[in-house]
């Protein structure tokens, strides 16, 4: 347990200090949300329809952007070897790393989605449920992302590869999340999102740990 907590806080500190803290993924998110209306032009009704789903795409891409180095740095600087030597199973340490990512990147993103959704013409009263759905969805993204990041950790320019590997797994949360954002079947979609999140958080660390053991060879 001590090892899990130590890993969690260390990763929170690393995520915070590297790359401009929580500000940077947030900036990425906001940037993507801003690019979309630029590309689509000023048509209000179009934005209102296309906007909230886009916030989801932007959130998915923001998570993607922070996945690349998650394990690659550990592999290169020898930290992974040390994690393998801990008495605590690697699965638990990977889970701790995922939780840290969720705290430092996921949480601010979900709360930034509020203003973003409003800017993209979502109705005000739907903002809280959008935030909740993003919290769940980001957990699902991170669960799937752990696997992609672990599998591609040994690859030099892995960022793009990770994206290719995990994007298919991002599809279900995005579909359900967008339906929340659009106000359709909110309860059912939230339940399905929670299912995705649980699935990702439980299976993700196992698959990721298996891949990391191979990477250490």
């Amino acid at each position: 347990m001590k090892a899990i907590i130590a890993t969690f806080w260390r990763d929170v500190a690393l995520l915070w200090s590297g790359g401009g803290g929580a500000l940077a993924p947030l900036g990425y998110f906001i940037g993507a949300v801003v690019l979309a209306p630029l590309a689509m032009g000023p048509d209000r009704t179009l934005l209102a329809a296309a906007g909230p789903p886009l916030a989801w795409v932007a959130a998915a891409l923001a998570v993607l952007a922070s996945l690349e180095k998650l394990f690659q740095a550990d592999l290169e600087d020898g930290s992974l070897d040390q994690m393998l030597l801990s008495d605590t199973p690697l699965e638990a340490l990977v889970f701790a790393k995922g939780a840290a990512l969720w705290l430092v990147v996921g949480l601010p993103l979900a709360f930034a989605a509020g203003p973003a959704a409003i800017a993209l013409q979502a109705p005000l009263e739907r903002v809280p449920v959008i935030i909740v759905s993003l919290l769940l969805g980001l957990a699902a993204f991170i669960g799937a992302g752990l696997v992609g990041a672990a599998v591609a950790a040994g690859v030099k320019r892995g960022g793009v590869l990770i994206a290719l590997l995990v994007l298919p797994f991002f599809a279900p949360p995005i579909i359900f999340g967008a339906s929340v954002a659009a106000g359709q079947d909110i309860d059912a979609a939230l339940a399905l999102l929670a299912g995705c999140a649980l699935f990702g958080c439980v299976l993700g660390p196992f698959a990721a740990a298996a891949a990391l053991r191979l990477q250490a060879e």
Partner: protein
Amino acid sequence: MINFLANPARFMSATAWVAPAFGVLAALLFVIGVRDGLFHSPAEQFQGETVRIMYVHVPAAWWSLGVYTFMAGASFVSLVWRHAMADLAARAAAPIGATFAAICLITGSIWGAPTWGTWWEWDGRLTSMLILFLTYLGYLALVAAVDDEEKASRLAAILCLAGFVNIPIVHFSVEWWSTLHQPASVLRPGGSSIDASMRAPLFTMAGAYFSLFVALAIAHMRASVHRRRVEAARLRAAGAGP
């Protein structure tokens, strides 16, 4: 069987004839299937002649799912028992499966244009199939990117198993979501509902695709074994010196 073939030397001697034999079989079945499908089978009452795309589209769709399932099985064997030949089998199957998936997507689009009035629609079946194609691409990219072959195979096996969730989604998508795509009429509980005059050439073509898959996969595996032998020899030669 798996245990027997796990040894590369035995695999090589046991399969020397398999690839050419299945290649010939595939050619035969393609000739029969194309003849029956394109010339001897009836046009359909609603779709007319375009229905003939079916003989290309449907087997490609089936086998893109089938090949992925095979890969998942091989991946499982590879991860649990560390069989080198299971690695090779999964890796050999991937490009073939990706091609089948691409054929399914392309012929489906071509078929969709006259029948549904659109090339593409973001419905459950089409989307999940596209995701399957992307999963294939991801698998291939991963195998290409990791340069240690054995490690690449194991890592790709993990990815392959994770991606297997999509297979039932592709198959059942027509039931779970209301879609443009028609529900299963052949592979369904309670037997096929398709007319025999179409079923025969369809199954012939399915057999042809399968034979082609076996021939190509075995040929690919044999080539890999040969390549490894050459590389091992080269590395042994590099053994001298610091």
